[in-house]
């Protein structure tokens, strides 16, 4: 499973993208559980954001859902920071 997180907007307006491929990972199941929860609460179109708030696209194997600060679910928040943090 390929999990991509694209973060756009923010005060700086600078984009950030990170991707994790869970195939051949011992902890793939844990990622998949988190992804399922995060994606289930996502939206099919970008939600209305707030001024300078981050917007996120979570793309899992080519399918994309959207969410935005400050209204992330716990799972979305964890998945996003996990994907963006790991390669920083």
């Amino acid at each position, binding site marked *: *499973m390929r999990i991509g997180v694209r973060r756009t*907007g*923010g*005060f*700086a*307006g*600078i*984009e*950030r*993208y*990170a*991707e*994790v491929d869970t195939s051949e*990972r*011992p*902890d793939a*199941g*844990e*990622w*998949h*559980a*988190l*992804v*399922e929860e995060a*994606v*289930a*609460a*996502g*939206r*099919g*179109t*970008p939600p*209305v*954001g*707030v*001024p*300078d*708030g*981050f*917007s996120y*696209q979570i*793309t*899992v194997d*080519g*399918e*994309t*859902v*959207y969410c935005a*600060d*400050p209204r*992330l*679910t716990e799972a979305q928040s*964890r998945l996003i920071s*996990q*994907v*963006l*943090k*790991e*390669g*920083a």
Partner: protein
Amino acid sequence: MVASSDSHVTQCHIAAMKATHPVFCTIVPPHVLDKLAQADDPDLAGPARRTLEADAAQRTHRRLTTVLGAPAATVPQGAAAGKPHRTVYDAQHGQRLPGVKVRGEGDEPGRDATVNRAYAGLGATFELLLKGFERDSIDGTGLPLVASVHYGENYGNAFWDGRQMVFGDGDEIFRDFTIPVDVIAHELAHGLTQYTANFTYFGQPGALNESVSDVFGSLVKQYVNDETADRADWLIGAGLLTERVTGVALRSMKAPGTAYDDDVLGKDPQPAKMEDYVRTGRDNGGVHINSGIPNHAFYLLATDLGGRAWERAGQIWYDTLTGGSLEVDASFADFARATVAAARARFGDGEELEALLKAWSLVGVPTG
């Protein structure tokens, strides 16, 4: 929130998360990503288009947000008009707002410099609105000012959520977002715009929304430092970038496009003129990019007039923002024309009007 019907995720096992290693992670400037998007990812054009299509519906929603989002907080009993009513909360690195109250109006400074900076920044913005423009808080009727600091973990951002300001402590790229007073004032100015012209946060009206925040952000900094237009640095977010980044700030109103040029961040993508307007679906249609154009027009006007920028240039912008003549989806040209009307009403056909027409002409925005 609705469940996605197109998720591929089906079978899952719950277990503790472990450390992981991504295959690819980078920070790329929007203009580079635009090219990448066209080449690699057909999914990326769709969201931008859908955002545009949804924009009309969003406008209605925003109107409602403006009304319904009017803060639950009310002016405390016995509070004097013309005095700020500030409250700073500590989000304690969580994402629940507002967090724990750490400083109220009139409380002595504590040990947390971030809290003190937020409190002082709210006060400075309140003071410029009151003394410079005779406005009692961002709504004109003494609205309490609320800020939350220490939001999230490793959180390199600040935003206005429709009711309050929110500040993160920064990450590997940015320091604490309460450090530059212009950033605090920028966020609060989003509230000012929300209560007045309420520009839709997309495309040109979105870039106007951003520019107004940069203008008032810079004016508050100049007011605090008691600087004249020729001495101001006209930078937004000076002191915000960590030592890892090659740059002086996030944006430059004096020379848009020159604030940073960095291996990781890329180059500051802001244009100064209409001919370089960036068409993109990203960043809500480039609201933080194309704001460079009205930003530069303001800089040209203020430096041409000289003296304290908030007194004449700032007054024209303030009158335009609060005048009630602009639609929420105003274009740059609509805004420019409204500044001309505002300048005429306030100063007549004098040097202010002449400098204003010249400024818009230099950035390529028509006023006729």
